């Protein structure tokens, strides 16, 4: 595992482990059979999903100055280096904000509405706030946590959910359910 932390192609930042080649592991996307949208990663974002498939939350960091950046992009806005690596994070964070969408929505989402969408500020990289869902278990429905349990500042931890579209997305569980 420690080796995987550092074994990255510093040009693309992609994991070099061929069992999870991000160009294949993170392709696909679109719409799953459950009707929910799956991510359609671009070249820069593909490693995020490849690592998520292994149960790891990693963000792109500059290989030279070390600054994390999100969303992933070709070069570092601080030092302009094109070399990057993907740093493994603790998977912990706090809810920065949330909404409860109601219809009109795409049908698969309307079926679960009102559900929650949370914005999670990462403990290890506070300027990065990941959009996700607070769920009762990693494969539970988008509305599986009662709205009254959701509050700004609540500590959460990452969970990894394999979508029906084939990609793994990061979801969030309350640290104190």
């Amino acid at each position: 595992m420690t080796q995987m932390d550092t074994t990255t192609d510093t040009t693309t930042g992609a994991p070099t482990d061929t069992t999870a080649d991000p160009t294949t592991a993170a392709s696909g996307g679109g719409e799953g059979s459950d009707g929910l949208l799956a991510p359609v990663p671009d070249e820069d974002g593909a490693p995020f999903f490849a690592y998520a498939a292994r149960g790891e939350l990693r963000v792109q960091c500059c290989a030279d100055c070390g600054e994390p950046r999100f969303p992933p992009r070709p070069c570092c806005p601080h030092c302009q280096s094109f070399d990057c690596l993907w740093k493994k994070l603790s998977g912990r964070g706090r809810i920065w904000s949330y909404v409860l969408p109601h219809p009109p929505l795409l049908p698969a989402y309307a079926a679960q509405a009102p559900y929650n969408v949370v914005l999670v500020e990462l403990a290890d990289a506070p300027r990065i706030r990941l959009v996700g869902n607070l769920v009762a278990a990693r494969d539970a429905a988008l509305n599986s946590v009662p709205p009254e349990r959701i509050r700004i500042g609540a500590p959460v931890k990452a969970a990894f959910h394999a979508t029906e579209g084939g990609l793994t997305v990061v979801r969030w569980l309350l640290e104190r359910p």
Partner: protein
Amino acid sequence: MGATETTRTTAGAIAGAGATLKDATAIAGIGQTPFAKRLPESEKTLACRAILAALDDAGIAPSEVDAFASYTMEETDEVEVAKAIGAGDVTFFSKVGYGGGGSCATVAHLAAAIATGQASVGVAWRSRKRGSGPRPWTNTRAQLPTPAQWTRPYGLLRPADEIGLLARRYMHEYGATRDHFFNVALACRNRANQNPAAIMYDRPLTREMYMTARWISEPLCLFDNCLETDGALACVVVSAERARDCRQRPVYVHSAAQGLPAQHHGMVNYWNDDPLTGPSWTAARQLWKTADFGPQDVDVAQIYDAFTPLIPLSLEGYGFCARGEGAAFTEGGALEIGGRLPLNTGGGGLSEAYVHGFNLITEGVRQLRGTGTAQVPGAETCLVTAGEGVPTSALLLRS
């Protein structure tokens, strides 16, 4: 030194190192179609009607038009519009991106082109059947790649959801309440109730209606969201000198700016130090830097209102109050006629029509002509803004 060596051109602009847009150009004509949930004519036909109405308002022949500007989301292009209305040879055309963030920039681009001699008669327009046509967010094929890979799979599908996240945080940090958002919705609705062209002309809004309305994306309810409208609008930009010979009282483009802040991410601006400091802050710095007056001198404001929380955020960004005070600013009827800053005096996107903010430009012109349906007495200065939350633009207009 450079300033003393400059010379005034016939366009009223200052040539040379000190070149400035300030009052060099003016909006000489405005035009629009009716607004409705559904209009039978095509977007192209509506665009032509609005543009010809604006030219007629200015008293300028279509054959004199040599510049066009619109939004990248505009479906009618300058080739089709130019040949339909009978424009002459066109020497400047421009499209501005980022949806409603581009509204004021269309005028700014024309002003820059005319002030620098690239063209002489510019038309900016927006024609959109958003009332009867599809909602953009339902096109998931177009929406899923960057940056939507990070947001839409989780059900953050619509602009209302994206802005809702910022609104919830704003409420949390600064004590803003739904009553503050209601103040915005009410001011716009009250003005629409005075404007026969407004979709909501005969539909008053009460606090009871607002507080019991259905949710769209909590904390935003139905009345925090703009309308869905079919309609088209246009305006004509010419040199200040030319404008003084036109049919209507000139409304000068005093200052103009676009705004794309460092490390900004569009409407999903969640990945930087301070997501609540949006593009309006960047546009405002440039806008005021080149103006002869400040926020305290603005008589009336037309602030982009796709969602009510954009008003307090914009009030802060454009300097009408300090950070965190935008919600409190709306109290005590501040946004009504007679208040500190009369807002969206035609009803805005919330209650007149939602045509990507172009009706805010035309209403600003009416106010400075003194012909608004809810006229601010003696209004001489007007701020018009484009969409906050996305790369934006703004205009300071004066009579």
